């Protein structure tokens, strides 16, 4: 017995050493370029709903590849609308022109943009020199509805800032400093036009950006507003506004709100330079727009050299991003198995089925957990109720299981459809629960409830959920998924730990509770 324990420990040590060696070699030789640098890939999702049947056309500004960001994949899906992709005549920005289709109550435009940021730079490349036509020049010096350049207050401020010896460049810097320092950042619903912002010295993001545009234009520096996004994980991305001013034959970017001048971080993704709205259309055409941004696993294929070496087989980060997502999900499963093993063999928790909690947790990883949990409980309660009723008919097992499975599938599909109808799902990636696993869980629940009583069944159900939640919380940590993908050799550590647990002959935590009585009332 001791030999087996020793053999297990020895094997575990060898595995750990091998895993550590592999990881070290890879960090040293192949992963240098990638390492743990912050993510360079993002997914921007547009979800725009038209809730009107009235005729009209809306225009949706779309992101475009730039010198520092590359859209390596984009998918569009739409219903009830005609979509035409075109470019803006003046700014050359990409746009989608959308017209409602006759006969549809609602229209929906859903788009994903997977954006790869160029590595090795913390901020944008210096802008390229451009020429600007006289026509455009006049256009970017004009007065607009909310960018007033005529007011007396405006001229006063400019007089304070400017003096005669100043170059345009210096003036631009002073204008930026004024907007960034002297105008207080106000709430969302405070002034958003240039005149009021400058007059009261307070404005929201848009107001401050417009104030700067107005000051620039008044001092004959062509300037324009940029609407775009800052790339960060968020379910509800807010449109951010910043300013581009034409100086020294270049369009230079300024963000008065965050204090970036002349250069912006590469996470600033411009969408449109022609308007403050990403979606534009007549007001009569009701529409809601929603944007979300999610970080993706880094597709190294953009980073590392494309040399095809045999060693690259173990470099999973070279796989295409869509494949990476799946692979990292699969690689998380052993981790869930490890957690299950610990909870069962060391803590002593009972669950329905060994890997049921892991698989349930896995199905929640890429879904919104709230809707997922809702659908999960709906499917489960319908299944359990149906199983109770079916019991009265006394059907053979396989037929009965199949009926429960069919009902569960129907129920889930219906739930997903209802969620979509109510616009509750943030994206099309709705919850897809493991149906067969759920069916078996329903069956086990009913059998245990019938044979060992409902309290027992509920207890095991609760512990199953508990184990699922534990698995989910660990697997949800983004770093864990990335580590699993970058270092597949981590699985060797996993096996090593499992080997040790497999030879663990100590008490389970639950047994300390279970056997309490013996020690207190000893053998007579």
């Amino acid at each position, binding site marked *: *017995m001791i030999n087996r324990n020793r053999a297990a420990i020895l094997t575990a040590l060898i595995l750990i050493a091998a895993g550590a060696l592999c990881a070290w070699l890879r960090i040293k030789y192949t992963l240098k370029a990638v390492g743990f640098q912050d993510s360079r890939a993002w997914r921007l999702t547009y979800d725009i709903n038209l809730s009107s049947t009235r005729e009209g056309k809306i225009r949706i500004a779309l992101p475009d590849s730039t010198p520092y960001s590359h859209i390596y994949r984009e998918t569009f899906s739409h219903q009830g609308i005609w979509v035409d992709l075109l470019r803006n005549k003046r700014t050359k920005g990409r746009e989608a022109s959308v017209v409602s289709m006759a006969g549809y109550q609602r229209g929906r435009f859903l788009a994903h943009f997977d954006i790869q940021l160029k590595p090795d730079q913390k901020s944008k490349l210096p802008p390229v020199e451009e020429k600007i036509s006289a026509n455009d020049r006049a256009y970017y010096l004009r007065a607009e509805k909310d960018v007033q350049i005529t007011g007396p207050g405006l001229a006063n401020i400019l007089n304070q800032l400017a003096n005669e010896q100043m170059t345009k460049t210096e003036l631009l810097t002073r204008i930026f400093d004024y907007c960034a320092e002297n105008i207080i950042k106000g709430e969302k619903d405070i002034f958003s036009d240039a005149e009021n912002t400058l007059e009261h010295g307070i404005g929201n993001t848009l107001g401050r950006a417009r104030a700067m545009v107005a000051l620039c234009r008044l001092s004959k520096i062509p300037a324009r507003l940029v609407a775009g996004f800052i790339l960060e994980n968020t379910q509800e991305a807010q449109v951010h506004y910043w300013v581009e001013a034409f100086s020294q034959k270049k369009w230079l970017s300024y963000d008065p709100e965050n204090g970036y001048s002349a250069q912006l971080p590469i996470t600033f993704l411009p969408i449109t330079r022609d308007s403050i709205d990403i979606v534009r259309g007549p007001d009569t055409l009701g529409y809601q727009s929603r944007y979300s941004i999610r970080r993706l696993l880094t597709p190294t294929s953009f980073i590392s050299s494309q040399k095809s070496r045999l060693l690259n087989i173990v470099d999973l980060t070279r796989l295409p991003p869509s494949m990476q997502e799946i692979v990292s999900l699969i690689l998380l499963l052993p981790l869930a198995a490890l957690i299950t093993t610990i909870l069962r*063999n060391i803590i*002593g928790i009972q669950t329905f089925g060994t890997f049921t909690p892991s698989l349930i947790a896995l199905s929640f990883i890429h879904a919104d957990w709230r809707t997922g949990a809702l659908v999960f409980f709906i499917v489960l309660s319908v299944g359990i109720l149906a199983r109770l009723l079916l019991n009265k008919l*006394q059907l*053979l*097992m*396989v037929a009965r299981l199949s009926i429960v499975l069919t009902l569960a599938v129907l129920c889930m599909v219906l739930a997903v459809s209802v969620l979509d109808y109510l616009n509750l799902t943030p994206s099309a990636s709705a919850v897809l629960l493991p149906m067969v696993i759920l069916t078996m869980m329903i069956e086990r629940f009913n*059998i245990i409830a019938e*044979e*060992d*009583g409902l309290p027992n069944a509920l207890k095991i159900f609760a512990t199953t959920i508990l184990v699922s939640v534990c698995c989910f919380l660990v697997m949800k940590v983004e770093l864990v998924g990335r580590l699993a993908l970058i270092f597949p050799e981590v699985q060797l550590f996993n096996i090593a730990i499992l080997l040790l647990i497999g*030879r*663990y*002959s*100590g*008490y*389970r935590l639950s*047994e*300390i509770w*279970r*056997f*309490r*009585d*013996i*020690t*207190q*009332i*000893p*053998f*007579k």
Partner: protein
Amino acid sequence: MVRAGKLPFWLWPSEFRRNGIIGINSRNINLIFPFNPRSNYALVDNKALTKKLCESRHIPAPQTYALIQRFGDIRRSIDLLFGLSSFVIKPTRGAGGRGVLAIAHRSGKGFKNTKGELFSLEQIRYHISTILSGLYSLSGQPDQAMIEKLIEPHPVFKGLTVAGTPDIRIVIYKTTPIMSMLRLPTEASKGRANLHQGAAGVGIDLETGITYGGVWRDRVFDVHPDTGASLGGVTIPMWKDVLKIAMQLSCAIGLQYAGVDVLLDAEDGPLILEANARPGLSIQIANRCGLWQKLRNTNLKQGFA
């Protein structure tokens, strides 16, 4: 309910170790893997095979009326039931007393089980078919159903018997009985004699066959949870025979660490119910004693290290 002693909330594992208590992990790693070869599991996991073995070795076991192996056999077996007033239907590969239906007597066109619930012939047919389709079998594999004689519990268990048949679990290590307990079905266990399902266990002194205090739901109990009858002081009749047949079976099945369940019939005396390759650990609470101590003693007596 009388509960002896006041319990602390937490105990250190060292205290358990000192008392020689075996946990599940230890049971699996130190007893079942080395002493119970997997190839011999088939004999104990399938009650029909265990029974065949008993018959060939002349070890007493309840009489078998029929073994139903295919769905086609159900009709013929149902005809057989008309001639019987009491019988037990059980899956051959069931676990934890699941799927066992004990019919005590006829009632008009139908049958009544030991708990007094009415069963129609149709329900019994359905029950057999669910057994055959594998609902109660250990791994969900298709199973066989066995129809046996219903045991009349020995009168000594009167007052301790609620809606089921008590049996005696004997844990045998290397052909030596090391611990035993009387397993009493309760209302909570729905007539089944498995401790984890709510049956009560009562430790039995191996030398004398006299019971002392018991266990219920993993806690020390001195009276039957339903009837309130005292659990200690019951002398098991024909105790030496009970031990004898248990030892005979343990030799026959080739498991060095086994739990043998013995029934005590009013007429036929001790009968083998089944053997178990993974006997439960609550027997330690019933006997107020850890299994390691007994194992150590056995090893010393038999000259093992």
